[in-house]
């Protein structure tokens, strides 16, 4: 089980308090009517799915209830950092463990 730090509550809490929210920084196209089918499919379905650092959303569902982002290494499951929603992805090379 992961131990996740909620950046709002500023506490390390067990994974069971959280709900996974998929890849982070996937922006909905501002004007959906202007997108091509391929662009819309990219937004809906296509994901980076990296072997290594992954920026992902979590929600502290059994806590403050807020969404935040998390950088996690998908090979070791080690969480590098968590950061508040709306802030850019930290420029971290997390391959060193």
């Amino acid at each position: 089980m992961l131990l996740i730090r909620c950046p709002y509550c500023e506490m390390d809490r067990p994974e069971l308090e959280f709900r996974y929210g998929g890849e982070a920084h996937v922006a909905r196209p501002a004007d959906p009517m202007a997108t091509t089918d391929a662009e819309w499919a990219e937004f809906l379905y296509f994901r980076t799915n990296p072997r290594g650092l992954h920026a992902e959303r979590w929600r502290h569902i059994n806590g403050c209830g807020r969404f935040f982002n998390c950088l996690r290494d998908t090979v070791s499951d080690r969480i590098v950092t968590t950061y508040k929603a709306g802030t850019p992805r930290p420029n971290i090379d997390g391959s060193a463990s």
Partner: protein
Amino acid sequence: MKFSALSVFLQGLKGNRGWPEQWRSPEPKAAYDAVIVGAGGHGLATAYYMAKEHGMRNIAVLEKGWLGGGNTGRNTTIVRSNYLWEESEGIYEHAMKLWEGLSHELNYNVMYSPRGVMMLAHNIHDVQVFKRHVHANRLAGIDNEWLTPEEAKAFCPLLNIGKNIRYPVIGASLQRRGGTARHDAVAWGYARGADALGVDIIQNCEVTGIRRDVSGAVAGVETAKGFIATKRVGVVAAGNTSVVMAMAGVRMPLESYPLQALVSEPVKPMMPCVVMSNTVHAYMSQSDKGELVIGAGTDAYTSYSQTGGLHIATHTLDAICELFPAVRRLRMLRNWGGIVDVTPDRSPIIGKTPVPGLFVNCGWGTGGFKATPGSGHVFAHLVAKGEPEAIAAPFTLDRFRTGRLIDEAAAAAVAH
């Protein structure tokens, strides 16, 4: 060499020391007509049918570890074809028909055992969904039937159908032709069969890059053992498909999750069939060694770690202990995770890609083992001919753009 009663007898006289290696361990050649990436069951089956049915003998299967060491060796060995949509029924029933003759086809005992797969309904929604499956399957000529709780208990006497449990059993669907097969033997049988037809199976040979020519078409693959030239590459890399496809610059509608399973200490035969419960996230069968093989769910997050959170397995055991009170004092021997590549509609992708010469067979998610022969059979046709046959045609990568999804996610709820 061919396995027969006579060969087993004669080798027995020699103390079983005369068995030859079942496949070669060749070094890669400089060029092949086609290269399959991934020597799991699906990749090896692909190579076997390419050689056998399409006459392609100059092909290689590249494997970064050892053959059958990924999800082929990590699944819970369940075989069934009771899916909802016609497209799914087509591919899974194609596989089922091949399972029925596979041991003879390969001259290798894959221990296919049609002992019946029973899926439990615990609420009204389950009843409605499963009855819909039963009717859809029967219209498609696939066996599936509805059982009352008493009939379910008659088929699997271990089952607790008491009314006072948290999720009482209020019915079940049963596919009698469903069952299990020996997962390792499937990989070994296909490897042996492909090797005998001249296919080079190259283990410990990780693909590190896909080289493309000036037109953008596939020119070969970079590997741990050097460059291999080829015009056709079939990627069958399961959980690592996104990583391999990224080498050719192709993004995939896939996410990789850990899926866990566990086995108990071996006991005498007690479990006559496979029982699955999607609602409480548990399924169980008994291997021929006597271990109870238990499948759990996926973790919530994407990962390549081949391990998962203990709370997932614990949750499954809670359900198992309630449904099968007789197993409460059994000890679990080991648990593990495999990395499954999941598509948004929970159906596989068997198709061409935007890169000429590059083909992909992936997205089997939590239920790829059952499809192994059928998947290899149709993918062999695609890689050999360049166009899919009718059964595989709906499973394109392009369906996520066109919207013609094959939505088994809503149809099957959780486990496959």
